[in-house]
């Protein structure tokens, strides 16, 4: 049993709940707020892991994640949404209840898939593996179901959050260099995609992926 298992489990449960909230949310501005909450939970769980292991590099990782995922990336996304003027657009999802049921199926699948993984390793919290796997699958589902490019990017960022969550909670973090690399990748990715969105819209008058595809066919 890991130290501090109870609060880490509670955070894990909240993490899964937040991913579901993302899947369910229609408005982009609220989606970005939920993304910031996900970052907060992630930062708290890394800080808890750092406290449990007294490791300096996890504390540094918590600071880095907090700065990046609570402040910087949400601010960038907000600015992007404001400049593209899509922050209050409502997305037409597939029936919300259907999405929820598919999500539940994914969660059950992930929880069952986590059992043999946890059995193979020693001292690995199987609950965390299951929840992280479920979060990754749910973020993927969000990327598949969303119509506009910006919310697909948020789904991608949520997936990255889930991966970091898995890494820190299960094995107490990756080497510092790799974490810095990922953080840099995320920042650069958001910047490049931001520029990319303006080009997409100039070209196609819309960020709606379905519409872009239809236009490609009719050419």
């Amino acid at each position, binding site marked *: 049993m890991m130290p501090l298992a109870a609060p880490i489990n*509670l955070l894990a*449960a909240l993490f899964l709940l937040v991913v*579901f909230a993302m899947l369910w949310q229609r408005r982009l501005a609220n989606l970005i707020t939920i993304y910031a909450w996900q970052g907060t939970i992630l930062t708290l769980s890394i800080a808890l892991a750092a406290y449990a292991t007294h490791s300096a590099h996890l504390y540094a990782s918590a600071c880095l994640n907090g700065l990046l995922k609570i402040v910087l990336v949400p601010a960038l996304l907000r600015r992007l949404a404001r400049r593209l003027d899509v922050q209050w657009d409502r997305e037409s999802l597939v029936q919300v*209840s259907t999405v*929820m049921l598919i999500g539940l199926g994914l*969660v059950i699948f992930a929880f069952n898939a986590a059992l043999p993984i946890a059995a193979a390793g020693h001292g690995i919290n199987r*609950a965390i593996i299951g929840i992280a796997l479920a979060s990754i699958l749910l973020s993927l589902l969000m990327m598949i179901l969303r119509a506009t490019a910006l919310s697909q990017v948020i789904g991608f960022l949520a997936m990255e959050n889930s991966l970091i969550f898995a890494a820190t909670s299960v094995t107490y973090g990756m080497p510092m260099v790799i974490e810095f690399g990922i953080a840099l990748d995320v920042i650069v990715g958001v910047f490049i995609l931001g520029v990319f969105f303006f080009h997409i819209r100039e070209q196609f008058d819309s960020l709606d992926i379905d519409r872009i595809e239809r236009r490609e066919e009719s050419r």
Partner: protein
Amino acid sequence: MIAHLFMRQGVQILFVLAMAPLLAGWVRQCRAWLANRAGAGLLQPYRELLRLLRKQPVVPHEASALFVATPYIVFTTMVVASALVPMITIHLPLAGAADAVVLAGVFSLARIFAALAAMDLGTGFGSMGARRAMLVGFLAEPALLMVLFTPALISGSTSLVVIVRQLARHGVILYPSMAFAAVAYVMVTLAENARLPVDNPDTHLELTMIHEALNLEYSGRYLALIEWGAAIKLFVYIGIGAALFFPWGIAQGTSSAGLAIAYALFSAKLATAGAGLAVIETVFAKLRLFRVPEFLGTAFLLAVLGLLMRYLFGH
């Protein structure tokens, strides 16, 4: 000993009958305060019940016996439900007789009769309200059952008495699964009792009404029974919530001092829950009817997630 048991049961039923209108008045008063109004006072529901009981009821010509019988059936099922929940003490003769699943069944019995009676006359509003009530009911019931299964899994029994005894013995532990179930339970309670995000309890003659549409043709003592039954239903739902999620303070022993403390604590829980309900009703706007399935689907999702958490964490 047996006489004592049944006396405790009788006192609890009388307590519920007497206090249910007060709870309704308290929720209304809190809402009035939150909206900066003076409010009609805590005793207003009693005055309304008294007025309705004195009035002569009017029954439509086309009504069948079902129409007249339904208020009595609804009221009786609610009283039975209130007897099945260990609110004050776990030593109740009837509380051991039925478990949580039966309780859900008792509620749906009342709902079916209310819907049938509303359809009985063949008026537009009545049958529309009946259909809507059944829609909400059939979505809320699976969510309610899923909520009940989480504490049932933790304590190893679907009997509310065993659940209360087991959970109270563990002391104050925050189970993630129970937190999920509690949120889902609040959502189900709002839907089942026709409270604000799902139905507006204050309006008559609107196209959005659900609960009021069922009672449009009732008057006099029939309406009084239905309104009183609705107040008892809310009371019982809060009682179930207290038993499942805040079982501390429900008397385990049989001493009269313990019972007195349990009554005081339960009244405090009721007051808190009523105030919380008023806050929810003030903060949230009414959902469109087509969004209600989403609302209850979310409740179902939370309840199932709670169950899965319980399975995954193993505690």
